[in-house]
């Protein structure tokens, strides 16, 4: 029987402030080292080692430094950060404050997606609670560490979940990804050293600080450190957020959520991987199926070309339009999907230019959006579209 491992979603979490107080008793660099040791990989989906970011930003010099909480989850099928922000708000803010101590930043900013305006009162209430308890504001816990948190609004752009476009947006610009280098740890928000982490990443921090790196590592399967939240939706009995050891298999999660007659599972959202029933043993881990947080289940009744079309319409709408492969490529893939639906392709071979295009997007796109938006096309067309390899008349 599959079981959840509720840490971040635990009923009896650690006492608010205990982790921050402990962190403040440690040297900033030691906090960053502990997080690095815990091998916490970024929970937004890209999986960059959080502790490495902290160590880099801690060592970078700048007039000011910033902690940014990326609350712009927009990946289709993702809602775990909403649940965390609703129900575990103080824990996230505490995680941000710990990060602030670790890199010597005095300002934390939550970039909150425009789709979640109703969370603002709850976040502001949590902030006030922490201020009342002396856990935010000036001279926290009698130390000379001061830290406060504010909210900056998004305005409806999926691409702003990409960290550099998020900062562009916060600076009052179009949410167009920047070229890297420079990396945010050196030159981020307003050109200052910046640590930007996902909501879930911050939610894990207090646990790591209290229980230690070794404990946290052991939560996951094998090489995978910690637990991970999964937003499950689609053809399941119990859609919702599940917390499992990182590296758990897809079928464990499906068992928990109650799935039957599963035809396909989309792991990691529209930009993730689409797997068939024969692949359900695969692991949701950064080494196998990158676990952004979204798991969408499709049963046998679904036409996967319809699904693909929906995904591709999403990307066509959400591309920033800056680089050629993504701006034009998604549109051309959508054309191909229309042709597929209309039966205008007779063989997979005729689709070769589109697979080539998908490769160009994956390799040549400027940011994570462009590099991943063709995944669903490749996966769904290769695995779920019934076409002969060659047809009469193919050259």
């Amino acid at each position, binding site marked *: 029987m599959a079981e959840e491992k509720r840490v971040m979603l635990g009923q009896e979490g650690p006492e608010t402030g205990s982790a921050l107080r402990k962190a403040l008793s440690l040297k900033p660099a030691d906090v960053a080292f502990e997080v690095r040791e815990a091998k916490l990989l970024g929970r937004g989906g890209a999986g960059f080692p959080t502790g490495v970011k902290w160590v880099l930003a801690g060592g970078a010099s700048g007039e000011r430094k910033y902690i940014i909480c990326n609350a712009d*989850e*927009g*990946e*289709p*099928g*993702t*809602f775990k*950060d*909403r649940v965390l922000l609703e129900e575990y708000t103080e824990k996230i803010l505490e995680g941000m404050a710990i990060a602030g101590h670790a890199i010597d930043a005095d300002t934390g900013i939550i970039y909150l*997606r*425009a*789709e*979640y*305006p*109703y969370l603002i009162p709850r976040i502001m209430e949590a902030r006030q609670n922490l201020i009342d308890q002396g856990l935010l504001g000036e001279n926290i816990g009698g130390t000379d560490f001061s830290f406060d948190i504010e909210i*900056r*609004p*998004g*305005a*409806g*752009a*999926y691409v702003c979940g990409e960290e550099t476009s998020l900062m562009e*947006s*916060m*600076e*009052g*610009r*179009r*949410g167009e990804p920047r070229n890297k280098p420079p990396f945010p740890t050196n030159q981020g*928000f*307003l050109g200052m050293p910046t640590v930007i982490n996902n909501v879930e990443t911050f939610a894990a921090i207090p646990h790591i600080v209290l229980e230690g790196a070794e404990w946290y590592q052991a939560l996951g399967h094998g090489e995978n450190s910690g637990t991970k939240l999964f*937003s*499950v*939706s*689609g*053809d399941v009995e119990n*859609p*919702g*957020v599940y917390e499992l050891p990182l590296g758990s298999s897809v079928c464990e999660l499906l068992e928990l959520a109650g799935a039957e007659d599963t035809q396909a599972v*989309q792991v990691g959202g*529209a930009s993730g991987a689409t797997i068939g029933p024969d692949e359900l043993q695969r692991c949701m881990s950064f080494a196998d199926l990158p676990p952004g947080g*979204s798991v*969408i289940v*499709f049963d046998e009744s*679904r036409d996967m070309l319809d*699904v693909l079309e*929906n*995904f591709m*319409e*999403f990307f066509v*709408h*959400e591309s*920033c339009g800056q680089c050629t492969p993504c701006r034009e490529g998604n549109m051309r893939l959508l054309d191909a999907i229309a042709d597929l639906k209309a039966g205008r392709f007779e063989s997979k071979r005729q689709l070769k230019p589109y697979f080539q295009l998908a490769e160009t997007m994956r390799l040549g796109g400027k940011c994570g959006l462009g590099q991943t938006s063709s995944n669903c096309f490749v996966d769904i067309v290769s695995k779920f579209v019934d076409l002969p390899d060659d047809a009469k008349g193919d050259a």
Partner: protein
Amino acid sequence: MARSAEQIVEEGLSRYGSGREAVMQLLTDVNNELGYVPEEAMRAIAKAVGVSNAEIYSVVSFYSFLSIEPRGRHIVRLCKTISCAMKGSADILDALRGELGIGVGETTEDGRVTLETTSCIGLCDQSPAMLVNDVPHSRLTPEKACEIVRGLE
């Protein structure tokens, strides 16, 4: 008494400052209060933060939730992304179009409601879902959705 675009910007500037990083806050405030970002607001923001009018217009045009066109008093944003689509958002959209007598992107003649579709709004566990202004509504049925918009003043 409703505030003018310039007043909203003026007040915003005193709260957020006139740095470039105040722009999204200023635009959001104007957009939330007036339903869109009028030309004079863009001009005022451009002047205050020291960029060209075109620059602010370019920013506004980038974001789905910011509008350059006047909209209704209430904005209905129905999610059209996959999890909601699988649970019948197309039927909800049909019902809302019928109820309001308008298409997507349009506003009722009395200026009451603007109907829009939107990318994933993170309510996939309760799909189909929509936002009415700042308020989420989930597990919609066509009847429930129509009832909600009927109740909008």
